[in-house]
Structures are given as C-alpha cells and as structure tokens.
C-alpha cells in the first residue's frame, strides 16, 4: 500500500495494548499457581499465543499490511506445528 506512510497508529493504541499484555502476563503467572494438571501449561501457552497475536497485529503492523504477510506467517507456523506433530508420532508410540 503506497499510502502506508500516511497510516499512523496513535500512541494511545500502543499503551492500551501494553496494558492488556501486562495484564495477560500477570494472569498467566497467577494461573500457574492453581493446579490444573496438564491444562495449566496449555492455558499458559494459549495466553502466550493470544499475547503474540497483539504483538504481531499491532506492534508489528500485520493488521495493516498486505494480507500476504499474515498468510505467509500462518503458513510458517503451520509447517512448524506439523513438523512437531509428525515428530511426536515417533516419540508417542515408541
């Protein structure tokens, strides 16, 4: 988008996102104090993923870039996940 340069994100937006991120961080710390078994870690990772989505979309500007970038990012993450999954097909069933 050639009018990229004209798109300015207000300072406030960044500060709101920061507040959200800090809240989520403290939440994930608090959650791990509660014993939920394997669910605890799952939840902490989910929160991490949720935090990441804000860093990616707002701080790294993905929300306002061409869709190709988001597409590529999702594909990269997917490939990594499938590789981990297939590797586990070995370790889970040995």
């Amino acid at each position, binding site marked *: 988008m050639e009018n990229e340069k004209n798109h300015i994100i207000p300072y406030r937006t960044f500060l709101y996102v920061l507040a959200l991120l800090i809240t989520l961080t403290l939440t994930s710390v608090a959650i791990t104090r509660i014993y939920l078994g394997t669910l605890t870690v799952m939840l902490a990772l989910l929160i991490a993923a949720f935090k990441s989505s804000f860093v990616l979309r707002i701080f790294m500007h993905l929300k306002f870039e061409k869709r190709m970038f988001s597409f590529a990012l999702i594909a990269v993450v997917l*490939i990594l996940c499938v590789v981990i999954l*297939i590797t586990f097909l*070995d370790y889970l*069933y*040995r």
Partner: protein
Amino acid sequence: MNTQPGIIEPSFLEHKGKYKGLFSWIFSTDHKRIALLYLFSILSFFAVGATLGLLMKFELIAPGRTIMSAQAYNAFFTLHGIVMIFAVVIPGLPAVFGNFLLPIMIGAKDVAFPRINLLSWYLYVTGVSLVLVSQFAGQGPPDTGWTFYAPYSFRTTGNMLPAVFGAFVLGFSSILTGLNFLVTMHRMRAPGMTWLKMPLFPWTLYATGWVQLLATPIIGITLLMIVAERTLHIGFFDPTLGGDPLLYQHLFWTYSHPAVYIMILPAMGAISEIITTFSHKTIFGYKFMVVSALAIAFVGYFVWGHHMFTSGMSGTALYTFSLLTFLVAIPSAVKVFNWISTMHEGSLDLQTPFYWAIAFIFVFMIGGFSGLILGSLAANVHLHNTHFVVAHFHFIVFGGTGFAFFGAMHYWYPKITGRMYDTRWANIGLILFFIGFITLYGPMFYLGFKGMPRRYYDYDEVFHAGNIISSMGSWVLYSGLAIIVINLFASLRNGLLAPADPWGGKTLEWTIPSPPPVENFDEIPVITKGPYDYK
C-alpha cells in the same frame, strides 16, 4: 527490444565500473557477475569432490586395501559428501543460473538486494574454506560421513568444529540467496507479468526459495547443538546424559530432506525451459507444472523419516513417513508426464541441451523409481545403508541436478558468454559421460540388492565383479566430464559469436544481447503474453 549483439552498450563482461581487474569481479553487485563468481567456485569444488569420488572408486576396485587406509577412506567419503552436497548441488543451479537468469526472465535489472547477493557469495567462500580447513588442522579430518550422526560426531577426535561451522555458514549463504529470490519475484516482475505469466524456471526458484528459507534454519540450529555437545557436553543427543541420538537424526533430516528439493526443483525448471524451446511448443499443462513445483516443496517438508526407517522409530512414524513419501512422488510424475507431452507433436530441434534434457528424464525416472522401492518399509529393511541407496541418490541428484546443470550450461552458454560452444565435442562429451554414468552407478543397484554395505572400505569377494565395472565407469565418466568442460572453456575463445536468440526461445533472456549489458534491459519490457508463446 535489443537484438543487435552488443554494439550500442558494452556487455556486462566489458563494463567499466568503480573497480578494476579482479576487484571489479569480487566487489561487484551485478547479479550476472555474482553468478559467474559462483560458477567458478562451484566448478572448482565440484572438481575437488569429483576427484575424491574417483579416488574412492579406485580404492573400491578390489577388496582390501588398494590405495588408502580405512581411516582415510572414511575421511574421503565424508569430505566428498560435504563438498558435493553443501558446496556444489545445493547452491548449484540457484546460485549460478538463478542469479544470472532470474532477474532477466522476469524483466528486472537486478535482484531485490544486490549487496546481500554478494554477501551470500562471500559467505559461501568462507563456509567452504572452513570445511577445507577441517581437513588439515587439528586432530585429523572428520570421518563421520556428511550426515554427522550423533553420538559419533561429538565423540570422534576428528576435526568436527570447522566442518560443522563451515556447513552452518554455507546454510546462511543459502538462506540469503533464497530470501533474495523470493523478494525479487514478489516485488520486481515487469509490468504485465502476473504470477501466471512467469516462466517455469523462476517458479521453481520460487518454490526452492521457500525451502531454503524455512528448512535451512533447522540444520543451522542442529549444527549449533552439535557444537554445544562437543564443547559443553550439553547432553541433547548424548544417551548417557538423557539425550536421544535419534532426535539428532530427526532434526538433521528435517532439513536435509527438503534440501534435496532445493537441489531438484530448479533442475526441473531448467528442464522445462529447455524442452519448451527445443520442442518449439508451449509447455503442456503450465498450471499443473506450477502447482506441482509448490506441492513438491510443501509435501517435501514432511517425509524426512524415510531416511530413518531402520533407526528405531515407532510403527506409527514408519507408516506415516512411507505414505507421505509415496505421495510426494506424484507431483514429480506429473512433471515427467507434462515434459513428454510437451515434446509430443512438437517441432523438435535436436541440440545438445535437448539431449541433456532427455537423458535427465531417463536417469531421473530410474532414480525416482528406486526411491519408491526405498520408500517401501519392507524393502527398506533389506536395502538401507547398502549401495542401493548410493545408486538411488546418485541417479537422482547427480543424474537429476547434474544433468540439468550441464543442460542449462549449454542452453544458456550463448547468452552468458556471447559465443556458441562446439556442438560435436559437446555431444561426444555427453555420450561418454552418459555411458560412464550408467556404468558407474547402475551396478550399485545390483551390489546393494545383493547386500554390499555403503561407506565400507572393504567388501566380500562376491561383490568384486560389480565393483570393477563400476570403477571403470568412473573413468569413462571422468573423461566425458573433462571433454565437456574443456570444450566449454575452449569455445570461450574459439566459438562463433552468438546472436541474441540462437535457439528460437521465447522467454525474456532471448530478447536482449548475448552477453547482456549491465542493466539487462534498455527499457523494462511490458508483458502482454504468456511465457512460451510459440506459433
């Protein structure tokens, strides 16, 4: 359109820039000069690797010691593998022909990041130098094989660190090349050249670029872990510390399998270019060729375990990898079918590059079929780590990428050098090379099937005859190679001057002078037609 040979502008070879002499080459950011820098380096290291191979075959001509000790043989096949894989075939077609042709074929003046392009060549030279250092410094050359399997790779006294680090640097060079090409194709196609009007060689470079970008970091980190094992005893792959050596294999092959697609995809692209031009016919099934290239790259990420069938993986992993391996063969088969269909009812011009292309299809199919045999779990138990595997990968990598490289060399020789090569000597070289190739690698299928292990310095007398034939094949191959290379060098001086379009090709490189001027195009062309607009 530029159709006059170099009268108006000096060619890129004659161009006078900021630097003089050697410096005008090693400081150049012109993609064409960088391509030739790569060509020079890669041919030199290919000569090293080929000589190692020749000596290995000489050792194997008889059982027992022939010309070297067992330890030396281990060092030889290690270096042969490292040089051929990391320094020749992986950079190979992309670094030479991709660099030279990609910008021209999409109507651009250079790649997206010319200085990073030069950096990737510097990294290449640094990486190979480090690998060569490992031969002479320290406690002796590495003897682990190019696969550096744990735990031996962190236990051996051989000089692993420079070799491993050299491979790491080479990986970085590959990543930068891939990154450059991807961005170039995204951002610098000529006006009117939509993705689906882009020729097939760039498309395969695109698919390759994603593999270079996403797979290479995995081996990067794996090599760093080997360094950590050797220096810090960190324990990732050391069974005495809780590590799993098999995890090393998983990580290693998670890159090294996609790496073979880095080797073969650009080769397939070059073959597509050659076949369309010398059939004077557009490619059969352009969209299928594009999709199959992308499919090979994508599915290729998920088949790595077929290198590990006998290593102790779970049953689930075994049949998953076997199934995926069979699936990844399908798009390759689509390509072969489409090449043949392109030739069918085409107006064939029987030139040297076309002979290389036909030979490619022949050996690539043999290599491919033998891959399916290896991909079958039951057969693999019998064939793993035998010479059958050695035959398979030489047919498909040397046969595939190698034949395509020579085909491309002859196809684009007029464009790059401005001269025609001597056809008679080129064809004589090809015939000798081909006979040598089949004689060298064909018997290995039989030897492997009968049980001769690979990477063994010695063997049972029952394998002797096959080895004699194979070793003699290496001499014929080597002489064919010598004729081909000498012819290409001699034609630099003696060859007829080449016109802009000696073959009647339709892609953009044939519209500019031979050799091209520095910025390729006087004016960036506007594209209105598809890439293979014959008739």
